[in-house]
């Protein structure tokens, strides 16, 4: 995992079972509280981390991936959430935006995870190296305490 630009940092490794989501959320909120992040930034972090990790968990079992590696830290004025997994190469930035629904009958029921990442973070970076996907999400916040 590449190093983040500032201190303090936190890291967490979870398995690929959905039951681990609660641990991810608790970890995010604990860190956000320790950094005195505005509540709204903490909520955005929680929402985006949940979407990223859920998406990985959905594909992990069929691809033999077992662990998900998360890190939180600062990059200048931004909070950076890094998520690495060992699933097949997948760049979420390449996924097109879904067409807006025009009626309840034709509304899509899935595929909203990546639009949520785009809307509720302030930047996405992606790389693939050593057999791992590495996604970094940035969240605008004040400087670290």
């Amino acid at each position: 995992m590449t190093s983040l630009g500032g201190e303090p940092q936190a890291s967490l490794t979870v398995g690929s079972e959905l039951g681990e989501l609660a641990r991810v959320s608790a970890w995010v909120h604990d860190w956000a509280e320790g950094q005195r992040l505005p509540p709204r930034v903490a909520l955005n972090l929680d929402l985006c981390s949940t979407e990223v990790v859920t998406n990985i968990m959905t594909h992990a079992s069929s691809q033999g991936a077992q662990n998900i590696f998360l890190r939180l830290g600062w990059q200048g004025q931004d909070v950076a959430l890094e998520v690495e997994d060992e699933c097949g190469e997948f760049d979420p930035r390449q996924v097109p935006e879904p067409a807006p629904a025009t009626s309840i009958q034709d509304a899509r029921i899935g595929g909203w995870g990546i639009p949520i990442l785009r809307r509720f973070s302030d930047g996405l970076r992606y790389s693939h190296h050593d057999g791992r996907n590495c996604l970094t999400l940035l969240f605008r916040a004040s400087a670290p305490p």
Partner: protein
Amino acid sequence: MDLRSEQLADGVEKISLVGRMDSIGGHDINVRLSALVANRKLLAVVDLSEVSFLASIGIRTLVVNARAQSMRGGVMALASPQPLVAEVLKMAGIDTIIPVYPDVDSACNALMAGAGSR
């Protein structure tokens, strides 16, 4: 997640959801919500005031059940979303296909007015 339902005096079914609509809570609540709304025609208001979190799995739950209700000739509306939940609904355009009201009373009034005009 928790789900509570009650029949209001005007015949509207009020369904209150409580908790996080993520992949854990959302799955459980989808089964229980479907059991309530998918098999009979209703005027249903889903009170979201105690839903603190709406992930993409929660969008799926709301769309699937609103669609099922629509196909039966009923209406499922949403009421009282918290700010983050309201933003997720707006981002996905759900607020243009499922009516969203600021509170349960205004949702009930709108559903009753709509039922009267049909």
